[in-house]
């Protein structure tokens, strides 16, 4: 029977060409939506690695103050903020704070063992943070330790913390990265002292990237961080915010600061990331609805054009159920033709590695889209198939 249906549909390929083309395009749309959707889902499932409720970001500009002075002022500001009631913790950080759209990326040529072959690890998020960050952001240390007093003593190899993604990128086989040396900036070597779960400042919908953390020691005289992350007591509001801003201005002449809650930054970042996929989904749903209605219409019209043929099949001994299955089967055969064309396009993406998306995401999308396409086609064919099964052969055959 399946062969019969495919023969029939193959012989009707010219008549059904446009329909197949439409199904093909529908598949491509489904594939695109599936790719974006499963990519976002895949990203969302990964741990974010930190808590952002009741955390504020304070950005400041030291105005015309020279850097050396500004570093001193910063220490005063930090002391003042930490002493403020309602402030639970303050961490200095470079400007790549969570949901800020700022990032600092680096790439490393990494060798598993000294002298071994090097392979690149790209797009590593690099963070310069104060040791207080763990408590302020609730980072989870899964191996080794976080920065502490021991790191204040300058050793031969400055300490470095990495996240689990970075651990996997360095040692896919599972060997621990603890204690290993990592060469950054051409010559300087850093010792890995700990691994944290994650710190995905790009947000939960962005692809998780490997991360490395270098410490900003209080005695640092080279780097002036311009962002603070402040954990505040739950329920803190505008009063505390004003107080912090006033304090900073009072201590640093010419300093200006901007305070935002991570909650609010998270919403605006989420909005920005989700807008395009959302728009695309709405458009695609509409397109697919359109295709479904059209397919339904064409199938319905086809039934009335084929009454005689279906009547003959009944006369030759086809039960009503067989006619219904024929119509659904034909639709699925057409869908398969369109799907094959669509698959030819879809497999190019994982094969060529285009757009830099993960292969697993593409494969999920290919399968999801195929399933959705068959489901769509089946739903469209159900009513016409019942209509066809209800044809009375005596009437249909007399019409001509």
């Amino acid at each position: 029977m399946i062969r019969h249906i495919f023969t029939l549909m193959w012989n009707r390929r010219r008549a059904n060409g446009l329909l197949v083309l439409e199904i093909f395009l529908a598949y491509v749309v489904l594939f695109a939506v599936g790719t974006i959707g499963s990519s976002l889902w895949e990203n969302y499932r990964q741990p974010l690695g930190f808590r952002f409720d009741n955390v504020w970001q304070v950005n400041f500009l030291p105005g015309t103050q020279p850097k050396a002075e500004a570093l001193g002022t910063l220490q005063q500001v930090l002391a003042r903020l930490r002493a403020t009631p309602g402030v639970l913790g303050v961490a200095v950080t470079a400007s790549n704070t969570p949901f800020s759209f700022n990032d600092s990326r680096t790439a490393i040529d990494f060798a598993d063992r000294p002298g071994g072959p090097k392979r690149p690890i790209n797009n590593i998020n690099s963070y310069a943070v104060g040791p207080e960050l763990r408590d302020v952001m609730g980072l989870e240390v899964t191996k080794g330790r976080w920065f502490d007093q021991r790191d204040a003593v300058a050793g031969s190899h400055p300490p470095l913390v990495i996240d689990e993604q970075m651990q996997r990128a360095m040692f896919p086989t599972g060997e621990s990265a603890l204690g290993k040396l990592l060469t950054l900036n051409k010559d300087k070597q850093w010792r890995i002292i700990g691994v944290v779960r994650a710190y995905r400042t790009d947000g939960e919908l962005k692809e998780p990237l490997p991360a490395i953390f270098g410490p900003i020691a209080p005695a640092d005289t080279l780097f002036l961080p311009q962002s603070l992350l402040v954990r505040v007591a739950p329920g803190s509001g505008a009063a505390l915010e004003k107080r912090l801003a006033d304090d900073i201005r009072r201590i640093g002449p010419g300093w200006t600061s901007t305070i935002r809650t991570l909650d609010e930054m998270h919403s605006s970042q989420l909005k920005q990331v989700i807008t395009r996929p959302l728009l695309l989904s709405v458009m695609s749903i509409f397109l697919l609805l359109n295709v479904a209605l059209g397919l339904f219409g064409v199938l319905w019209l086809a039934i009335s054009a084929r009454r005689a043929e279906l009547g003959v099949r009944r006369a030759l001994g086809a039960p009503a159920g067989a006619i219904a299955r024929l119509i659904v089967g034909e639709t699925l055969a057409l869908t398969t033709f369109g799907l094959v064309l669509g698959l030819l396009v879809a497999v190019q993406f994982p094969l060529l590695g285009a757009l830099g998306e993960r292969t697993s995401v593409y494969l999920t999308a290919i399968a999801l889209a195929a399933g959705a396409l068959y489901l769509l086609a089946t739903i469209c064919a159900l009513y016409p198939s019942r209509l066809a099964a209800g044809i009375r052969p005596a009437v249909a055959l007399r019409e001509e």
Partner: protein
Amino acid sequence: MQPQPTTAPAPPAATATPPVIQLTGIEKVYQTSTIETVALSNVNLSINRGEFVSVMGPSGCGKSTLLSLMGLLDEPSGGTIAIDGRPVGSYSDKELAGLRNHKIGFVFQSYHLINDLSVRDNVELPLLYRPGIGGSERRRRALAALDKVGLTARTGHFPAQLSGGQRQRVAIARALVGEPEIILADEPTGNLDSVMGEEIMDLLLGLNRAQGTTLVMVTHDEQQALKTGRLVRFFDGRQVA
């Protein structure tokens, strides 16, 4: 259809083999919202194995309706239809389809071939609705049926590439392929010129004589009708001869 016990009553007084088709007191009324048309009224007719029966009558006398009823494509308004002595009134759609598939073959005036299937695929069609017959077996039987109608050279062609007479031969092969007990032909030569009509008529007569196929044929052609074993005439829904 009312649910009734499916066990058929025992055949009436087993004399010899029962008639292939037996119509008893058949009434057929078409009802539309405004008018009621009587198509058949009190028709009693038996078709015995090996017979070739022609049905004649003017247009609208009910002969096509009769054929639809005999072919189990339609239900009578009254009376019973028995196939091989078993009344079919209580049969389900599936059982009726099975009977049509196994016992009855159809030939239509306008052939009713499926344009998008090759000759061979068209002929195979009835076997497709018969479970348990594999592809190669279907093919073998289709070729055998085509051989009987003399069309083995055209198995890969499509209906549009054939003449009217050839198309009707394909239709006859399709009716034969399931080895039915009876073939119902509705004006099989109606769309053909006289030469081709003659060919088809000879083919049907040959099948009847050589293989003993039971045939019921509706026709307008007196000459053809006279060649068959029995002639039944209809007028205004009633059997007149």
